[in-house]
């Protein structure tokens, strides 16, 4: 065992740290926080995104031919650590870069690659995914948004929901049903859709916090040219499931934010500002903080094991467990924060944080579906009925 990072990763850290010191401005740093006018914030973030892209930092895990830097797992980890350390915002286009681009790289035509990837990288186009539907959540493959071929166009009708960035995106990776008679995974096609065209209505979805966080998309006879299809017709499921094999660094860095929250909570608990005075002399609070700390630290070590497994080619279960554990820890942080602040837990940002923590075990695959996946793919248990 050796927990030092390889010299090339440390060299990358130095390079990135120097670059961040020189290039990260206060406006960009402030835009990362969820405050101020959203439109202005987006413009600041776009500018920062272009700065990142010009330096080759907008999508470090991408191949260099597309403007990435072929970063391996350790470099991705270093990238996350240094961005976190500097308080730097990431790309404005995280869904495009992490989820959609890999599909375009593997399945796209040369024309699609050159048309989309550069602009995606620079944040010129913001992308969203049109996957979930009111009737297709965890059971995504039962989606019903229809596309019917009409000459050289598909005509799309249906509804999508839970679109992150649906309100600002100008492109959408859309899953549609093109063969209603085929088994459900085999009748799906993937389209790359221009969002700024007639027939598409974007409606904000008001979430549990009362804020607009996601969008609903309505498609009413939207015409999508055949050349915007990604991959073959009826193979959209495979297209959508494409992810970069080495996209492990992101998940493995989830612990950074949550451990920072735990450290802050420990500090807040010791503060005289805490309602009722410092709680760190209360044995029950001490025990609960220690327990939470334990959860955060073991999450980090599990993540490190996942990285190590990936780097050393060991088949281990850790990578599949990180999201399950991380989401649970996030919720425990919110619960303990509530406990520490008493009735003030119901107010303002604190109250919103408590509520938004519920999304952690739902978004990106519910805990229950993830457990099915681990049971069947990692433990080799039979599919349940």
């Amino acid at each position, binding site marked *: *065992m*050796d*927990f030092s*990072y390889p010299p090339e990763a440390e060299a990358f850290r130095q390079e990135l740290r120097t670059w961040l010191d020189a290039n990260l401005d206060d406006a960009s740093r402030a835009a990362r926080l969820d405050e101020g006018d959203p439109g202005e914030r987006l413009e600041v973030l776009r500018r920062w995104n272009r700065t990142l892209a010009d330096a080759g930092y907008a999508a470090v895990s991408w191949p260099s031919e597309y403007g990435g830097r072929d970063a391996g797992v*350790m470099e991705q*980890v270093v990238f996350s650590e240094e961005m976190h350390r500097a308080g730097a915002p990431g790309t404005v286009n995280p869904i495009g870069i992490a989820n959609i681009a890999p599909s375009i790289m593997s399945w796209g035509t040369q024309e699609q690659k050159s048309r989309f990837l550069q602009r995606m990288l620079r944040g010129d186009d913001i992308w969203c995914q049109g996957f979930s539907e009111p009737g297709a959540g965890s059971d995504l493959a039962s989606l019903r948004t229809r596309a019917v071929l009409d000459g050289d166009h598909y005509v799309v009708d249906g509804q999508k929901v839970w679109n992150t960035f649906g309100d600002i995106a100008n492109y959408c990776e859309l899953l549609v049903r093109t063969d209603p008679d085929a088994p459900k995974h085999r009748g799906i096609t993937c389209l790359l859709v221009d969002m700024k065209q007639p027939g598409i209505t974007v409606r904000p979805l008001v979430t549990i916090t009362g804020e607009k966080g996601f969008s609903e998309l309505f498609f009413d006879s939207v015409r999508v040219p055949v050349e915007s299809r990604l991959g073959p017709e009826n193979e959209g499921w495979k297209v959508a499931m494409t992810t970069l094999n080495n996209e492990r660094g992101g998940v493995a860095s989830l612990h950074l934010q949550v451990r920072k929250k735990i450290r802050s909570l*420990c500090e807040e*608990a*010791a503060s005289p500002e805490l309602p009722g005075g410092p709680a*760190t002399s209360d*044995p029950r609070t*001490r*025990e609960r*903080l*220690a*327990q939470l*700390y*334990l959860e955060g*630290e*073991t*999450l980090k*070590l*599990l993540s*490190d*094991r996942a*990285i*190590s*497994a990936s*780097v*050393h080619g*060991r088949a*281990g*279960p*850790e990578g599949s*467990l990180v999201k*399950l*554990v991380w989401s649970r820890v996030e919720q425990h942080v919110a619960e303990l924060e509530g406990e520490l602040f008493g009735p003030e837990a119901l107010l303002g940002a604190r109250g919103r944080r408590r509520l938004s923590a519920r999304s952690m075990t739902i978004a990106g695959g519910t805990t*229950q579906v993830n*457990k*099915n996946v*681990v*049971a*069947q793919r*990692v*433990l*080799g*248990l*039979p*599919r*349940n*009925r």
Partner: protein
Amino acid sequence: MDFEFSEEQEQLRETVRRFLEERAPIETVRSLLDDPRGTTDELWKGTVQLGLPGLLIPEAFGGGGGGMLEMGVVLEEMGRHLHPGPYLSSALSAVALLRAAGTDDARERWFPALADGSLVATVALFEAGQRYEWRTPTLRSVDAGERCLLSGEKSFVPDLAAADVCFVTAATDDGTGIFGVECNAAGVETLPLPSIDGTRHHGTLRLDAAEARRVDAGGATDGIATALDFIHVGTVADGVGAATRAFELALEYARQREQFGTTIGSFQAVQHLLTDMLTELELGRAAAYYALWAADADPDDRRRTSILAKAFACQAFPRIAEDAIQIFGGVGYTWEYDIHLYYKRLLTLRHTFGGVTESLDELASIILD
């Protein structure tokens, strides 16, 4: 980022695993459940032939000069095979105490015989009715010229019946001291303390003006605390092995047991339970392995990492065995099936050398004070 055991360490694991599978399979373990020594001369000799008792002892004293990662690999295998007997007490606890608090004299006296396995030792840190408080022993030492005389009682002494020498903490005029007591000396009485776990044997040590030899040079408390760091990590490594096997047994059972016309492993309720068990196991494994590494490689972080591993394992590992029993259902509650033996082993982990409350308390002091 290399969180993997080295090739040599994996070879050591393979060697120990083969030895335990061949020489101490579960039938042997069961036959030793009521034997207070928990081992046979032949089995102990087997560990000696593999050079295991002296693993942590410097080569200059005839030991293997290994570190905690090697020790962890051995203990994980021993936990996996529910190996009874005094290995952990002698090769880890006693050696760690001598390393952390012993004088050069004490090491020269005991290391060579501990290294070649001709001497089996254990440590007596706790007293009845004191839970896990070790800082304030009531057992007392009185100076008697060259040697000292000890009187009092120690409880929950691991592997006492198998030990030739016991390192005992005692109150002295200059604070807590450590003393080596020969178990067959005059004034020494050892009594078995049968617990629910037959794979881990404990005893009560009664001393009545027993002759003893001072081990430390005064102010032993810090050294004892350091030794406990190593002991915690070692017991957790043993727990990783036992919890892993308990999980595997439950998984195998869920794959083959049929009810309602299908394997119970196809039921979502069972699948989710197994996934939860796997999650806790892998979190605990990561904490344990890191603590093994840090024990030698990062002494400044040793206390934090060892107590972190201990606090996590004490909670999670017995729960894994409880869930395993749940998956076995009725037969999991029988003597015939082996799963209860793993549960008991993991309850010993939870309830010896410090409990959950004490571990969380200590962790809280590290992060909050």
